[in-house]
């Protein structure tokens, strides 16, 4: 498919991305432990936003239920680890599979009942609230106290003494996710996703198997979100409902993605990379005297972007011509 592009142009097109990757690889060498933590959190959100974007941006389904997938990953791997001694490296596939199953069920449900966009958002938010309430009250899942992960202190159990290892793991996750979306953009599946988003009726009419592809998008996105949940649980060594199943993290994911540019490849990367460090610095500097300031700023930025920069940072950048965006994604919002 790339045959039309001479290789030189291809390299130039990917140059910003490659430079970003290079910067990400060498960045922790020049940073203190605190900044590495901030970068880990930023990359975690990059991964989460890229995953959400597959459903929320590419396929155009406004899903507010991604906390379910995050919790499915975190809790499945944690329970397998605590009770059966299964390594989270294996548990993460179990968690991912459960999340993908839940995601496919939601996609099937919404298709079966032909839910309009608004109702789909409401159903996912209701399911997310149900998940949150259930986890907060079931003792086996640690209820609202949460579960503490025992430390076995070896790489086989997804545990590392240095944060650097966690940094490179989440970087690998994020890079893989970006490569996946780049590939999705060119693949038939990605084309179908966008067709469904832009006009589902027309997509059905020309023979796009809408249900199958909606389920596929949800499954991919849910699986990835579950992996993020496993990573976050291993990083914090602690799972509890507010962080892993609450609505705040979903709103943050949506917010970062929208600020970056929904439906684009690089929007969900740029959004969290700019906003998470900003928020963390605010929290570190003023968190003691002004709790919640970073979320306040996030909210203001989101409102400002929607009002003055529709399409997010990516649309603004591509208008400036600073970054080449594929025309199909630049128009999007």
């Amino acid at each position: 498919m790339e045959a039309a592009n001479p290789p030189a142009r291809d390299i130039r097109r990917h140059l910003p991305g490659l430079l970003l990757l290079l910067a990400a690889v060498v960045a922790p060498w020049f940073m203190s432990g605190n900044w590495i933590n901030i970068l880990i959190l930023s990359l975690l959100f990059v991964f989460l936003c890229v995953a959400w974007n597959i459903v929320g941006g590419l396929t155009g389904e406004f899903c507010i239920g991604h906390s379910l997938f995050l919790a499915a990953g975190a809790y499945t791997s944690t329970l397998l680890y605590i009770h059966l001694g299964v390594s989270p490296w294996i548990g993460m596939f179990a968690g991912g599979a459960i999340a993908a199953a839940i995601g496919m069920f939601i996609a099937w449900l919404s298709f079966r009942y032909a839910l309009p966009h608004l109702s789909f958002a409401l159903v996912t938010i209701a399911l997310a609230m149900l998940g949150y309430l259930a986890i907060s009250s079931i003792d086996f899942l640690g209820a609202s106290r949460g579960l503490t992960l025992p430390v076995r202190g070896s790489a086989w159990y997804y545990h590392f003494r240095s944060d650097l290892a966690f940094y490179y793991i989440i970087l690998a996750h994020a890079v893989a996710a970006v490569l996946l979306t780049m590939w999705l953009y060119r693949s038939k599946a990605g084309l179908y996703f966008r067709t469904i988003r832009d006009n589902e009726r027309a997509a059905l009419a020309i023979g796009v198997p809408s249900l199958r592809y909606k389920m596929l998008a949800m499954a991919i996105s849910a699986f990835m979100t579950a992996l993020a949940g496993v990573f976050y649980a291993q990083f914090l060594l602690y799972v509890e409902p507010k962080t892993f199943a609450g609505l705040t993290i979903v709103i943050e994911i949506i917010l970062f993605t929208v600020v970056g540019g929904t439906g684009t490849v690089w929007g969900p990367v740029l959004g969290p990379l700019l906003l998470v460090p900003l928020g963390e610095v605010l929290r570190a500097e003023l968190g003691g005297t002004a709790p919640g300031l970073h979320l306040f700023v996030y909210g203001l930025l989101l409102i400002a972007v929607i009002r003055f920069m529709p399409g997010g940072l990516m649309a603004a950048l591509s208008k400036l011509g600073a970054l080449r965006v594929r025309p199909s994604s630049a128009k999007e919002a």
Partner: protein
Amino acid sequence: MPIDVLLQATTQGLLMGSIYALVALSLTLIFAVGGLLNFAHGDFMVLAMYAAFAVLAAVGVDPYLLAVPLFGLFFLVGTGLFRGLVRPVLSEGLLVGAQLTLGMVFVLQNAMLLIFGGDHLSVPTVLSNRNVAFGTVILPLPLLVASAVAAILSIFLYVLLMRTDFGRQVRAVTQNRDAAALMGIPIVRVQAKAFGLGIGLLGLTGAFLVAQFTLTPSMGLDLTLLALIVMVFGGIGNFLGCLGGGLIIGVIEGLGTLFFGGTVGAMAPYVALVLVLLLRPHGLFGEH
């Protein structure tokens, strides 16, 4: 299960329900005229409650006396927000509007957290800690007053929408914006007024409800979700349906808590929401 316990739970559920109905009615008003799904709805009401608290703490004015000033203030805020923020992005579609209000959720919740701190607050009014007994049913007076006010306002709003020129304009804009414009209805002005009215009612309701809740800055989203559930139950955009939906949710919540305890009681409305969205997408009272 003794019958008077059941009666108590049902009555209390109905009273809470009439309050939910009013909140959902203003949510519906905002949704109907502009197609904006306001996720920050509950947060505006919580903002009114904190405002009432602040005035009480500063100058000792009882929250009930603040209802009308808060209505005026919130009406102005609402129309201002509509003209400055909401209207320019309405054409971008439903989801962009919803994202905008998600941003407002963060702004409002955390502004309140910054100003008032995260501790739970209870705000006393002249009526606090007084109960009224009807036979075996004992009801807190603040709840009784709040739901009476909510019921009166709901009826007032209903009459306003159904019997006045403004109401006819609102319904015309709701049904078909282009046709309404062709009939010479000043769409933007009607939308701004309706939006202001919706937010203004929250200011008023907040003042009356403040005694009923323990305040925390993050409680607004739960209220929004309840109002959304009521709106869906009544059939999105159906004003009369909201009234019925509110009462039903209040009773479901009351009886759910009674029979199954707090968690299931809290889960019941969400289960009901999913079922209604799937099985009766036009609401319980709408045509199928």
